[in-house]
């Protein structure tokens, strides 16, 4: 990475330039030979310091009270898969190895399991996710440095480090955070390819995207972003042969999962294809404006505004860099806008591109980087540097405040999937594990709490809302075809009400309570969380209630 620098390198007219590299400003395949002057101290050390701050702050907000709350449903599933892969005796009975997604993230967690043990599995998974998150910040720095210079790279890294959206997602043992890393690595290699026209970078990009797909199959959408960029900027793609080689590398990488599924055999392998069918025809889980409503505040409104402003400012000097970054945002957004299933963390892989665009705007406004080919940095006055720093700090602060606030936030008994841990979930599961006999079966409102109870409680749990109709349910979930009969026969011994599922499924919540009443339900455990009432007074809110039932 050290051989390219758009700001410091001077143009080398004797060397022919690739079409793409002409747009990298003064970026050339030249070694860095810094000649420190008093004026360049700011530029020499500033970006490094800022990047170090970004990494430090990023690590801090990601690690602070990382395991305070237990895992949510999706985390439980992925960690359960990791346990199944590592053949952990208890969890592998409750969580099948093959479910909806490929297994790269569970693979990494499974490697750690012998060292962490089952009890620390949630922490190990989250630490791994944090590691991927920090690596994404570093990759963002590298991309920004290549495209717009070190200042912009470091600023983008800082924005990403503090961005509430990325902070939230990369604190969880989800697939989206690691997938975002591989996708960002894809972007980095692609930029390298554009700068060097070396096939090996294109292959590296293809393999990185393949690893993204092996983490979560939706990463394949970014293939569309690449195709879009190449289509709009044919000078980038070059000859067809490297493209074919890269395509082959991508397909070979992605083929690992179906091949592993085929070779592994066993039960549950057919679920992957069933899951795809179900995803195609399932009913929308959120309104169509979900992303427009939820994501911009999570990105940081200042960052979004800066990114948009920057695109307007460079309209006249628009290059493949803007196309690539915009495609990196618009293609996945469009896809998930059309796709019926909408999840909060699904768009997290677009955050580096958004951070880069925002940082690039600041770079342009305050001449922190070059924006067009052959530009020479203007001499900056101290006030301009100061103003630049103040603006960066202000934007970073506008990100840090909500990031920290959401880490400290008390629950109001509702929960958005993928937005963090579930207060009380771990404790309820541990109660189940401690106080219920082996072989206990529980009924929850929905499959989310069932997953959490299974993960921490080590007991089989069924979601009441799981449809008996295979067309209307996630194929990995088992329905309770006749819950009344199961309860009457003593097949289910506990029912679990939780405020989070009840807020989403009031019908099934009421039905569950009906069963609790009908079968002599007796409250045996309650999980409370501290919150504030409408008048702002602290109060204990019951979020999970476990009833013992018998016929």
């Amino acid at each position, binding site marked *: *990475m050290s051989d390219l620098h758009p700001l410091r390198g001077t143009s080398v007219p004797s*060397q*022919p330039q*690739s*079409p793409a590299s002409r747009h990298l400003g003064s970026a050339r*395949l030249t070694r860095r030979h810094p000649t420190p002057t008093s004026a360049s101290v700011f530029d020499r050390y500033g970006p490094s310091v800022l990047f170090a701050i970004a990494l430090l702050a990023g690590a801090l907000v990601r690690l602070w009270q990382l395991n305070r709350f237990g895992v949510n449903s999706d985390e439980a599933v992925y960690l359960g898969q990791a346990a199944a*892969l*590592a*053949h952990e005796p208890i969890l592998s009975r409750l969580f099948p*190895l*093959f479910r909806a997604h490929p*297994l*790269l993230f569970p*693979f990494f967690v*499974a490697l750690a399991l012998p060292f962490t043990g089952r009890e620390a599995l949630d922490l190990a998974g989250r630490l791994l996710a944090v590691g991927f998150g920090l690596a994404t910040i570093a990759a963002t720095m590298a991309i920004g440095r290549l495209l717009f210079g070190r200042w912009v790279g470091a600023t983008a890294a800082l924005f990403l480090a503090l961005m509430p959206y990325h902070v939230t997602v990369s604190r969880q043992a989800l697939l989206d955070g690691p997938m975002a890393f591989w996708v960002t*690595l894809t972007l980095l*290699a692609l930029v*390298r390819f554009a700068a*060097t*026209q*070396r096939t*090996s*970078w294109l*292959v*590296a990009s293809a*393999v*990185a995207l*393949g*690893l993204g797909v*092996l983490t979560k199959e939706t990463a394949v959408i970014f293939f569309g972003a690449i195709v879009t960029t190449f289509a709009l900027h044919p000078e980038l793609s*070059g*000859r067809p042969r490297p493209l074919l080689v890269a395509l082959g*590398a991508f397909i070979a*990488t992605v083929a*690992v999962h179906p*091949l*592993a599924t085929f*070779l*592994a*055999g*066993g*039960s*549950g*392998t057919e679920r992957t294809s069933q899951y795809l069918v179900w995803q195609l025809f399932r009913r929308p889980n959120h309104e169509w404006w979900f992303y427009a409503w939820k994501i911009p505040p999570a990105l940081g409104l200042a960052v979004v505004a800066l990114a948009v402003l920057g695109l307007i400012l460079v309209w006249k000097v628009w290059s493949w860099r803007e196309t690539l970054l915009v495609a990196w945002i618009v293609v996945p957004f469009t896809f998930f806008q059309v796709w019926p299933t909408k999840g909060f963390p699904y768009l997290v892989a677009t955050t580096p591109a958004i951070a880069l665009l925002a940082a690039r705007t600041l770079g342009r406004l305050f001449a922190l980087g070059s924006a067009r080919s052959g530009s020479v940095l203007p001499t900056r006055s101290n006030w301009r540097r100061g103003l630049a720093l103040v603006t960066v700090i202000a934007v970073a602060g506008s990100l840090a405040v909500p990031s920290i606030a959401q880490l400290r936030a008390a629950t109001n008994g509702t929960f958005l999937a993928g937005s963090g841990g579930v207060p009380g979930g771990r404790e309820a599961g541990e109660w189940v594990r401690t106080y*219920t*006999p*082996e*072989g*206990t*079966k529980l009924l929850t409102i929905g499959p989310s709490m069932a997953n959490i109870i299974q993960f921490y409680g080590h007991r089989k749990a069924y979601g009441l809302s799981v449809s008996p109709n295979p067309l209307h349910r996630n194929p990995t979930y088992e329905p309770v075809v006749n819950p009344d009969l199961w309860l*009457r*026969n*003593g*097949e289910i*011994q506990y029912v679990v009400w939780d405020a989070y599922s009840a807020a989403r499924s009031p019908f099934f919540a009421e039905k569950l309570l009906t069963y609790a009443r009908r079968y*002599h339900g*007796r409250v045996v455990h309650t999980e409370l969380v501290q919150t504030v009432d409408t008048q702002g007074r602290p109060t204990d809110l019951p979020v999970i209630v476990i009833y*013992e039932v*018998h*016929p």
Partner: protein
Amino acid sequence: MKLVRPLLTLFLFASFWFPLQPVHAARPEPNTPIRHFIVLMQENHTFDNYFGTYPGADGIPPDTCMPVDPTDPASECVEPFHIGNLPIEDLDHSVVTFRRQLNGGRMNGFIWALRLRNHDGRIAMGYYDGRDLPYYWNLASEYVLFDRFFSSAHGGSVWNHMYWIAAVPGTEKNSIPAEGFSNDIVTIFDRLNEAGLTWKFYVQNYDPSITYRTRTEVVGPRAAQVVWCPLLAIPRYLDDPELFRHIVPLDEYFTDLQNGTLPNVAYIVPSGASEHPPGSIQAGQRFVRSLIQALMRSPYWWNSAFLVTYDDWGGWYDHVPPPQVDDYGYGFRVPAFLVSPYAKRGFIDSTTYDFTSILKFIEENWDLEPLAERDARATSIRNAFDFTQPPRQPAFIPWDWPPPPPTPEPRRSAVFGLYGFTVALALLVFLIPARRMHFLPRSLSSRRSRPSTPTHRGEGKR
């Protein structure tokens, strides 16, 4: 202030002294870790009828074929067969039928005796197995199954229930006397009362108004609660409120477990879920499961034992001739199994027991005097326990029999191998263009990592 030091000294002395003083408990301590003994009496099945094909138990001999008429040497015979979903009926199980089925110890009158009572009789040779009784078979495989547990009397419910509580038949005829049983009969509950131990008799769907005094006025099967709970046929238990209050509805069993008020000894009788033919054996299993699950969910599990048995043979075939210990018994074998954290695991206990063995265990456990000659001579069921083992964790018993075959395990090595190989390869793919291949031979590394230069093929064409 001068008093402070002496008071403190006195307090310290008292703190050390009083805990060392022996506590004179009102209730005697048990001689085993079992502080709560629960016994449930179901109805009308033999051991061979329920466990005749249970692996390892003294079940139906392989060459069994029951003559339809043992008095006719040319009579056809009926082999034992799986009942499954065949309809069953309430077979005659009177004293006369017992004697005919026993046929002087030849054990060959099971069909014939029933035919003389206008039954088809062949159904007596039917048996259930794990497909029909998955819960019981799984219980047996986890805890203790008794395969020489005899009903105490060769009659029906009345005698056997009396032996169960008092070690005596209570009456010469196998029926409740019109004036009730004698007040002189001493029951195990009297012994428990004398010792200051707690007890309850839980009756499912209990109606306190139905006693031996009113049962003839009651239409329908509910009058039988007097048979199942013989205390309702002993006048002093009805007339003394202090005794009568111990007979309670079954719902109290669940609340006692929840509230921490389970007595030392609990007798339970069903109503409707008793498995008495033609009642549903599945309903009976579910009923038993609800009782055992409730115990397992409570803190009482750790020092309890739950025994399930059946009051009489119900007319069904059993191949073991019962020992004749007196004029009344034993009757044919009945199913019995014990669930406890101290029960031996998957143990088949072949010691000869009858219902008075239950009394014997209670008496030995709490140092009580025997009630009668029968329980004095009986063998306690203590052999079924292993008190040297740590108490077993509660575990709900599954309903599947045979246990479902294990789902085929995926070859995890395939996943590990392929994913690991891919990640390693990806690392190399990134190291090549980044020229970080110092660990490779120089020639290989430089050849692979040669940067694109103007002289590179194709570069100059653009």
